């Protein structure tokens, strides 16, 4: 899987790729790329947690 896209095997993936193409914020892209599995909300929430923790520990 590339950084920008998600594989194109199902309608879900087709929609997610189209949505990704409309986003410019890297944080938003990361969240949509995390949309996977049987519980995509949980997967995105977990990614959001990671993003926030990274922001907390990120050094200027």
């Amino acid at each position, binding site marked *: 899987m590339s950084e920008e896209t998600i594989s194109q095997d*199902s*309608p*879900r993936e087709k*929609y*997610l790729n*189209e*949505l990704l193409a*409309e*986003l410019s*914020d890297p*944080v*938003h892209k990361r*969240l*949509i790329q995390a*949309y996977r599995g049987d519980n*995509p*909300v949980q997967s*995105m*929430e*977990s990614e*959001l*947690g990671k*993003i*926030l*923790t990274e*922001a*907390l520990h*990120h050094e*200027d």
Partner: protein
Amino acid sequence: MKIKNITIRGFRGFNEARMIDFDDRLTLICAPNSYGKTSISEALEWLLYGVTSKVEKADYSKEEYKGSYRNRHLPESLTPFVKVTFLEDRNEIEFRGELEEGEIITRFVNGRKVESWPLVEDLSKVPKPFVLQHALQYLLLTGPDERFREFARLLGLEELVQIQQNVISLCTKTDPHIPVEVEQLRRNILALEARLASQPSLTAIEKAFRKGKDGLAKTYEAVASECRRRVPPETEEESVLPQLLKIREEAVAKIFQGRITLPDYSEREKQANTEDEGFFLDRMANAFVKKYTELVALATVQHILDRAEFFDLGIRLLDKTPGKCPFCGQSIGDALVKHIHDEHASLATEKKRNEALQNQRTEIINLLAELKSRLVAYQTRHTNKTVQLLALEPSLEKLKTILVPKHQLHFNTVKTAISELANAKNKLETSHSKVLEALAKVETSVTESKENAALVETLGRILVEYIAQARSYVQSISGKVTAVSDADQILKHELDALAGTEDISVLIDLRERWHDIKKKFEIEGILESLKHLRKAAEQYVANKVLEAISGELTSEVMEWYGQIKTTGDPDVHFAGFDIERTKEGDLKARRVQIKAKSYGEDLVSAVSSLSESKLNALGLCVSIATNLKGRTPFEFLIIDDPIQSWDAEHEIQFIEVIRRLVEQGKQVILMSHNKQWIKQVRSGCRTLNGWYYEITGYTKAGPQICEVPWAEWAQRLQEVDAILKDPTASSATQQRAEAEIRIAIEDIMPELWRKKKGVQRSCHKLNSREVRKMLLECGVDQPLLDHITQTYETTDPAHHAQINYEPNRDRIRSYHSWTHELAQLLS
């Protein structure tokens, strides 16, 4: 996939098993209300989907819907079932659904139990092949949001809607998913902001602070300038903060010394805990126990090693004094020397094998050292957390004088936290000591070569108890972090108020926590930006749905709607689908709009403007259009009571819709309570010559279903007569006359059979051989028998399909005359 027949037993209005055959083009079922007509469509819907729309749309938890599938009169010993024979590429497939306890469906395909139907991956993603009154109302008379979901379902866009819902869920319910340490930082900075706002002397800073990320540079400048004002002018820049701290500490120390501190576990600490616990439980439980058990075996052979060494020494000495015992000097014979050599060789092999095991002892010692070191680090990580808070215990009385009565709750929180955490820490330390004790015993057993399996079992058990204790300790701390931190903020505030250092304290915090302040704004920026993600997802989904509903679907629905429209109708009509928009022109999320026009002018909404009959027509058209659109395994369409609230003219129009559906390859099963209209359908679709059933009565056993001829044979022969008399009748019209003759024969045959034999017989889809046989059995004389057989055979549509076939007026006249002759036998 078309339906050949359905058999229903014990389901809804059906008690005893009844089978209904369906024509592959058009079947009509007419019954007064409550005679079980809708039970047929519900049975098929339940078989396919495991639930009926009526129950699905209701709140299924309602008691009144429980047990509503099973017919009340079916004997307890019998299982209700619905069985359907489908036709796919001329192959028959039997689906059977049995209704089990708890409204569960058990599925069988051709008699074999299956988990799901072998149709499509997900039946919910293709339109249901049902046009049902309550479903139509649900689609149109519901709110725009519910309508949006229903349209998405009909158009197979559910995945898209699911994505939208999930993204909205992420963007709107963030709080529970913010990591504890991030949340803690946000809370602390918010509290600092509140304190800043309460200091009149710091207004300039507060003003800049409120501008958020954009005002950061100005805030920093204002803080620096204000700090400098509070210290002697000659103070070096790097000494400003220490100077401020000194001023505050000196003032506050006169009142109270200490902080209420209970830091939560950072993500890194949590990770370290998980890794340590994994090491204790997995690695120690597997690798360590295995190695240790092998050492136990090694200990049992120690005496062998001792003997080997003894023999080794003996052999070396024997080499120097052959034939004499090296220890006592007595002579020894060859047999004994050989025995000593053999024994030595055997023990040497045994010794070599055990040398490998000896290496394990070293590994075990190393492993135990690592375990001990990690246990100590693990324990220190835990106990360090509460050191500062527990150190406050002797100062509780003093703390009380500062916090109580104004902050009694916070004081109680601190007091309880100290007591509970001291207790938890004691338990953890006791448990930790036991682990170290057990570990020491294992260590000793290894170093002294006195391995004992019981020792390692005890260590494992105590280790597990210790980890459970530690986890409980972690939970206990995490549950108190927020409340303790709040109490600390209160204490600080109170101390500053008492010492008159509130503004200095705020300035110190602003300087000290500048890094955190920047982080907080960064984090807020991320959380705030989720609104944009939500909007982007909503706009994307709304655009996709708009694309699906405003283009093809609108024109297809319009086309069907145009079929039902009559010339006398007032010009108030459906004008297409759209998505509602905001004032700024953005698409509103999940708001499907049904547009209407009146004499060229746009109306607010079709739902509020169209009459019930037009809404009904629109609902039918939406359902039909979506059923014809896209992929679906179903070639049939069940239409249940479509003409409610329509006038006669619209009813007639809808017959043409049915004809078109059949022409487009749909197998239509139409149900209605309106006998008069059904008669018109049969007349309007006479050439289709489908199957027609009337439900003539209803008893406890279920509906009484009778097959009725599609049209009167006399009426058909009159039609043929009219065609023959029309000199302009085209070849196609004459072919229709031939078809009418053939159907008239099929209608006359059952009547003749009943008259001669006294029993009913269905004469659908006969062939000429069967016709000849029936005529023979009914005693028809030979010339007429031959004529009718010939007529039946040559009016076969397959016969018409021959190349260059042309109907012949004279031949039709003969067929017509012979059929009349056959009909005379009925009188």
